[in-house]
């Protein structure tokens, strides 16, 4: 009786420990997610200001050439400034004017330049153009700068605040979906910076990683598990090394890439090609080990059944063992790829950590990667970059969740096919 009581109590206690640890883990995860999301969600919007732009013939094309080669040299910046002056005609004095010019992003002149380039007939007309606001204005609009603070404690002074409040009252300022974040590369101005370079860099690098590590990894696993002679010193040696590789810190792979791929083979720096090659070194053992486990878990009776029917070794492996092991092998591969996607250290070493504005056109163009972009932006103190850092983390997390869900989905799907 007493015995039973203590046994039940023990069981209850053990259950409680389990529940407590799960709750702790979930709480920490929730805190992490909430802090990232609460800081980052605003980054998916950007602030735009409506400027009444007069595409003045005198400024743009005084000689009436209608030739873009001439027009492109025009003073577009002056056009923006003029528009701002038109919006706030009462502003006078150099320093005040300079302050006024700074409420729009420095990208405004390029935006207007593009508009002219697309349609030269616009010259001479008056248009209302929504240009990007400066990051400080953006922060104020999003509520990240408190308007009630004393003037000397906020980045927007009273005069600027007055202009912004005037724009707000006239509905000349609004928040829109942040397309810039997904369509541009890095920039020193937070409102103009985007993650496209990092996204493409990660994408290209992962393609290379998949193309290299998946076939090599699966072939290695199949050979070692199904065809390699057992009790062979050399095979044992390889096995130990693969297991060791899985535990090598990833930065070491980066150094290896630097020494061999960059210095010896003189491959391009900062290129997703090299990044992918380095990541595939790191991913290989992470594909091989689960793939071997998956092959090992196929019941030997299946293999024997096939051999007993007169199937050759290769037939038994490819017709019966591999199909059963596929879900496990795919899961391992996808999780390995997800780890590669989240890896930054080796990419830092081979130079995928640079200020890259131009969108990479291929595997050899310089690029960064998502985790490296986080590292780069996390370094900058500006409020606009803090928000964008959180946004990249969210994008990265979404990709990781998608990949891991795909792994689970594939496993479930193939398992259903088998049993």
């Amino acid at each position, binding site marked *: 009786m007493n015995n039973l009581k203590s046994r039940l109590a023990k069981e209850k206690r053990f259950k409680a420990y389990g529940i407590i640890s799960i709750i702790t883990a979930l709480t920490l995860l929730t805190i992490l997610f909430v802090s990232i999301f609460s800081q980052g969600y605003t980054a998916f919007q950007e602030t735009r200001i409506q400027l009444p732009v007069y595409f003045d013939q005198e400024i743009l094309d005084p000689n009436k050439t209608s030739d873009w080669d001439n027009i492109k040299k025009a003073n577009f910046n002056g056009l923006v400034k003029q528009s701002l002056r038109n919006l706030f005609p009462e502003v006078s004095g150099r320093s005040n004017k300079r302050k006024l010019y700074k409420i729009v992003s420095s990208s405004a002149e390029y935006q207007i330049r593009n508009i002219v380039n697309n349609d030269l007939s616009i010259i001479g007309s008056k248009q209302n153009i929504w240009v990007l606001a400066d990051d400080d204005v953006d922060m104020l609009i999003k509520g990240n700068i408190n308007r009630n603070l004393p003037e000397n404690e906020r980045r927007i002074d009273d005069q600027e605040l007055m202009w912004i409040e005037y724009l707000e009252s006239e509905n000349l300022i609004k928040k829109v979906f942040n397309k810039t974040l997904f369509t541009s590369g890095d920039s020193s101005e937070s409102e103009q910076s985007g993650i496209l370079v990092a996204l493409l860099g990660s994408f290209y690098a992962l393609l290379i990683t998949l193309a290299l590590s998946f076939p090599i990894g699966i072939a290695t696993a199949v050979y070692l598990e199904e065809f390699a002679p057992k009790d062979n010193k050399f095979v044992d040696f390889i096995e130990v090394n693969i297991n060791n590789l899985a535990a090598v810190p990833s930065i070491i792979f980066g150094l290896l890439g630097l020494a061999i791929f960059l210095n010896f083979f003189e491959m391009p720096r900062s290129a997703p090609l090299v990044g992918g090659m380095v990541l595939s070194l790191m991913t290989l053992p992470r594909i091989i080990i689960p793939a071997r486990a998956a092959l090992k878990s196929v019941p030997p009776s299946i293999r024997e*059944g096939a*051999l007993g029917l007169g*199937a050759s070794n290769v037939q038994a492996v490819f*017709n*019966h063992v591999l199909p059963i092991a596929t879900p496990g092998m795919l899961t391992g591969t996808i999780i390995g790829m997800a780890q590669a996607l989240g890896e930054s250290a080796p990419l830092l070493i081979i130079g995928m950590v640079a200020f890259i504005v131009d969108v990479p056109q291929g595997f050899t163009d310089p690029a960064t990667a998502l985790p490296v972009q986080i590292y780069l932006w996390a370094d900058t103190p500006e409020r606009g970059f803090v928000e964008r850092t959180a946004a990249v983390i969210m994008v990265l997390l979404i990709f990781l969740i998608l990949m891991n869900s795909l792994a689970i989905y594939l496993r479930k799907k193939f398992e259903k096919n088998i049993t």
Partner: protein
Amino acid sequence: MFDNEELIKETKSQALNSETVGDIHVDDPRIIAKNINVFYGDKPAINNASIDIGKNEVLAMIGPSGCGKSTFLRCLNRMNDTIDTCRVEGELFLDNENILDKKTDVVSLRAKVGMVFQKPNPFPKSIYDNVAYGPKIHGMAKNKIELDEIVFKSLDKAGLFEEVKDRLDAPGTSISGGQQQRLCIARTIAVSPEVILMDEPCSALDPIATAKIEELIYDLKKNFTIVIVTHAMQQAARVSQRTAYFHLGNLVEVGPTSKIFTTPQHKLTESYITGRFG
């Protein structure tokens, strides 16, 4: 209580020094095994076993666990090749060809000598594909019609066709254990072997399924040579014409089943069939 220890000691010495008693030869042999020795690493598993296996007979191999009967069975289609440490010596003729020869193609050998395993091991594919796999890899059917015929015939011979004809697309793992074992037999028959090896085919089955398999063995005897390893002595008595008794790696006694179970010549055989050890 018997003085068991003494008995074991005695049997050990007898087993190690004994020649096979009974009649190892038959008039019309399909398989002739001469001086088969099998080792796992350095450990001998079978000592100098010689036996003929006749055409259209069922040979039962009985003996206590670890006596080498399964090992001997697996020599007959060189399944022991899959075990790295296993070494087989001696001569083993199937239709005048030494199948232990390095040059023998195990793939075509295993098509001639089929095998049914202890646990039903259907492939995780449809019932149809389970049976069709063997004919497919050996190129036995030119087209779908011929393949269908082989599959249906094999299922029919295994007594399974009536039970599964409406669900040939169902996975082979979805039917009952006894049906799965008959599916494995159908799969083996489909490649038209000469010899069928059965390694305790009923040990995982209930009595009704067992009875069905035994009936099946009785029918199959007309067309195939069958070698069956079994733990159930009644089963050996029911299905076989000849019985071989193994003990500690020695082939102790071979003879007509009726004689082995009524008037065994060797003391070890007698002890075993009267249930003194096993």
